[in-house]
């Protein structure tokens, strides 16, 4: 409860400090617009030459793109800023200031930053998703909608855990500035359904980088492809990743010595 209140307070601070810079809203809006436009151009090119890609029709792929942009917005507003700050503080040794606070360190480093304006991506993603759902041949029922929300939440948790594990590598190797680029490069694979990738890559994108669960599985839920087994598997993997992230974090804590302090 105390931790939730802490997170809520940090959220309020984040929103308040972003509201000072209103022009950034328009810059972010433009950024979202460009992202959607390039995505649509990519889709249009593909469907210039074919009517379906690996069994996914045009509106279905549009739904995948909407979810990709939506989750991207969550990452940009809530996950990436925190992980960047953590990375920087591990390098500079200023993480000490977070660790001496009387709350759980992992929770604290995960909630300190919030980029309010990046939520424009979430809105853009929702808009694309809305158009896609309207174009879908099949109706989206209550169960599909619930499955979609559950899959989306689980996917978000898995992405967070994955990124925390990646960032924790900095406890050992210190200098990994390119981590953000690495993650974004991998995340770009989520623009398309995981099923189009060759086997070895699909396995990697499902279990090593839980991208399949973050983007493709929610899309499967919307398009009536999701089985209960997949959803249970997603929940299982989420729990496993949370445990692993916790373990890596604690090992990292033991290794951390305040590099420059």
């Amino acid at each position, binding site marked *: 409860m105390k931790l939730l209140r802490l997170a809520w307070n940090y959220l309020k601070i984040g929103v308040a400090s972003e509201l000072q810079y209103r022009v950034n809203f*328009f*810059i972010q809006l*433009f*950024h979202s617009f*460009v992202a959607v*436009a*390039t995505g649509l*151009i*990519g889709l249009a*090119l*593909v469907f*210039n*030459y*074919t009517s*379906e*890609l*690996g069994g996914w029709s045009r509106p279905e792929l549009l739904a995948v793109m909407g979810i990709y942009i939506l989750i991207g917005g969550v990452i940009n507003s809530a996950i990436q800023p925190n992980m960047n700050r953590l990375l920087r503080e591990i390098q500079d040794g200023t993480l000490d200031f977070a660790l001496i606070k009387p709350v759980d360190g992992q929770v604290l480093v995960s909630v300190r930053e919030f980029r309010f304006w990046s939520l424009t991506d979430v809105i853009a993603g929702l808009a694309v998703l809305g158009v896609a759902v309207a174009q879908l041949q099949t109706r989206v029922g209550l169960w599909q909608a619930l499955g979609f929300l559950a899959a989306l939440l689980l996917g978000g948790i898995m992405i967070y855990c994955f990124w925390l594990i990646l960032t924790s590598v900095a406890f050992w*190797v210190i*200098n*990994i*500035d*390119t*981590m953000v*680029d*690495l993650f*974004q*490069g*991998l995340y*770009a*694979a989520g*623009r*398309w359904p995981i099923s*189009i*990738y*060759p086997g070895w*890559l699909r396995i990697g994108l499902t279990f090593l980088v839980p991208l399949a669960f973050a983007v493709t599985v929610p899309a499967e839920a919307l398009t009536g492809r999701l089985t209960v087994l997949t959803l249970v598997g997603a929940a299982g993997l989420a729990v496993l990743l949370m445990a692993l992230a916790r373990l890596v974090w604690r090992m990292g804590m033991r290794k951390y010595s305040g590099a420059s302090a």
Partner: protein
Amino acid sequence: MKRLIDFYLTAMKFAVQKSFQYRLQSFFYLFTMFAEPVIYLVVWSTIAKQQGGSVGGYTVGGFAAYYITWTLLRNMNVARSPGDWEWRIQHGSMSAELLRPIHPIHNDVTDFAGWKLVMILMWLPIAALLALIFKPTLHPTWFQILIFFFAAWGAYLIRTVLMSLLGMITFWTTRVGAIYDLYFALELVLSGRLVPMPLMPTWVQHLANFLPFQWTFYFPINALTGSPTPAELVTGLGIQLLWFLGGLGLVNLVWHYGIRRFSSVGN
């Protein structure tokens, strides 16, 4: 001139040593770079297979050749990004660079050129692995290889002047993220970075003919993987040279006026 050549050789040697220091960093970077074309390659080879083997003249092996060469070319055409310009103008580290008796852009060029040499060494094993997996069809002539070598450096120089022009906008407005976004989106679509130019609608190809972008991706890649005539290859190099010289003139002009506005915002 001799002084400048000395500087280039020494600075590049220095950049090579620097790049060797952070090998894990470089490896991560390469991995990132490979993610983008592999995604395009998978999508387009899937479509080619669905269409019975080829799309717009590109077979599955043709796409593999295009996008694997893409990874080499991408290494070659990376230049000092507008974001770096923004940083050094905002934070004022440009002041230190201005104290040197040489234009800062020379340092940018050598820094990235030296880094490329190291990157190409690290690129080789990964490219070999990709070639094993995706089986590219590639039969270049010696002339094509020769032209590719020059065209790749040409692409680097053109991108250096374009990025510098964008970066120097920071002299006037200290935040230009939105302009960069637009630039990179245009480049993605109009350069052959996303798909080979022949797959684009005809009007896009016409538009691209009037812009510099395709000379930084499509032309060099196609020089190696396509079947252009020798005349086309030589003309292409000439057009690259024109874009570079024109861009260089603009860089000088913008620098001339921009540097007067420099006030090292951050310090």
